């Protein structure tokens, strides 16, 4: 391949990268047979990958005027909600029951130990445990979504029980109205 042609291709890819975030990213419906376009593939390296869609970060709960704790920690290999987190469940449930337009995303996490995809299952089990507890307190299922990151998104970077205990958690993230 000539140097000129290589340069042309590099420029063309650059243009795709630059152009992508300006376009609304079309996400194919679930199991769509249509190929995700080249531009979307390139777009992954930009920031149009979800953080811009209002799903990514917990937003300040300005209108409620209260601080509600939003992380529940778990014991090793367990999805049981410990008694000290009953108050967290209750206060979150009250807030959600009072405003049916509020939605929570329950993000389940594990520590780094064990097989990655199996840990995705364990994280989901934790998120589901929190979901059931909130529903028992009167929250509508439609207000709750779960996702599991397994061991992929630790908050603590260490490799001892001190870090692991922080990483075994479900984060209750406001997901908009």
């Amino acid at each position, binding site marked *: 391949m000539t140097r000129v042609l290589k340069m042309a*291709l590099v420029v063309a890819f650059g243009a795709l990268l630059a152009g992508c975030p300006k376009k609304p990213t079309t996400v194919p419906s679930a*199991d769509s047979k249509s190929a995700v376009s080249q531009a979307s593939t390139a777009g992954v390296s930009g920031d149009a*990958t*979800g953080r811009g869609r209002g799903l990514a970060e917990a937003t300040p709960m300005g209108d409620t005027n209260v601080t509600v704790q939003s992380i529940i920690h778990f014991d090793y290999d367990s999805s049981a909600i410990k008694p000290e987190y009953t108050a967290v469940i209750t206060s979150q449930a009250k807030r959600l029951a009072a405003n049916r337009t509020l939605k929570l995303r329950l993000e389940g996490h594990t520590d780094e130990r064990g097989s990655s995809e*199996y840990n995705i*299952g364990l994280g989901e089990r934790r998120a589901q445990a929190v979901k059931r507890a909130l529903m028992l307190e009167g929250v509508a299922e439609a207000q709750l979504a779960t996702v599991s990151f397994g061991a992929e*998104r630790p908050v603590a970077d260490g490799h001892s029980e001190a870090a692991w205990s922080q990483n075994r958690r479900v984060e209750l993230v406001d997901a908009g109205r």
Partner: protein
Amino acid sequence: MHSFNGRPGSISALTLGLLLLVGLLSSPAWGDSELTIQITRGTAAGIPVAIVPFAGMGPLPVDVASVVEADLARSGRFQTLPRKDMPQQPTTAAGIDASQWRILKTDYVTIGRLVPNGAGLAVEFEVVNVLTGQRLLGYSIPTTTETLRLAGHRVADMIYEKILGIPGAFATRIAYVSIEGPPKTRHWRLVVADADGENARVILDAPEPIMSPAWSPDGTRLAYVSFEGRNPAVFVQTLVTGARERVSGRAGINGAPAWSPDGRKLAITLSQPDGNLDVFLLDLDSRQLTRITEDPAIDTEPCFSVDGQSLYFTSDRAGRPQIYRIGLAGGKPTRVTFEGAYNARARIAPDGKSLAVVTQDQGAYRIALVDVDSGRSRVLTSGSLDIAPSFAPNGQNVMYSSREGGRAGLATVSVDGSVATRINGRAGEVRDPAWSPKL
């Protein structure tokens, strides 16, 4: 290509195209040598060989003989003679003075030349048994200056197979996930590199987790899980074009893709609204889904049997995770692993006789080899967190993720446990290795 003794051995046009196009997609910030490989355990009983520097056509970007030598040395099956100890540096088989090499207790001498070949060049090489004087191999491999390393890996594969009687796995590639940055601003990259860590190319770059890369049986596509959009989905990406499809993006979990041997289906893990994980079969043409497991436990990490008729998978239906096998035609799963409280993430050996699994061993997570028929288990590694095993296509080695000193790198171990290597990334962590099929 012309072969000195009539056997085919040319580099496929497909592989060449792959290298060129993936190269164009690469991030300019990435150098060619992203990983460093260290032999951490080896046998003293390697077969003594000498790879004499190949005669050149002037300065070339790659020292082909050193690529061959590094491959053979890294396998642990050969002891390579340092260049400074070589009694002569012949460039033809006729120039080899066998007696001089026999004194050094070298069994095999490889010599070679780079010669013009049309618009490109060719690597000619010959292997001589200096004990018998017999010429074992003589080949010419057409190549280009851009694919000289690959040509070297081909030479190493041919020497390995001729002397050991087992196909080599040097001219292969690996896919892995590279993670950089502190938890808050972490960054994930899906990387494809040569099996020796060279020619690393980023094929996907995301601010959300990437997991579980899996090579299609023909080596042209990768399936993987990406959390872009903050929900996991299974993608299939064609390496040559970079084009990809989201093949499963249902609500809930979409994970653990495994290719059927014919490359037409993926076994994947999906979750129900109640969060229960089961294994499904996804036909890539029709997009038809078939349920394979049905149990309230976690069923995940499927892996096809060699004949494609059944799946191995991880399930904690008995309390802790163990490996089970289920026929695709239905029926009850049978449990495969019984030794140890934790066995997960099975990968089948190319001969179908054993599984590499993650097992709990003395409080640590390690790679074990499980005999499929007897269920007997043998722990191969000694790390604290060894996970994600992947077989070399010749079945001789297993690559896996290994945490050592707080850092996740890759490692390999031979299936007899005698040879081990450690592969570290230049920066950050590397994990989730997937060894390509023979390319």
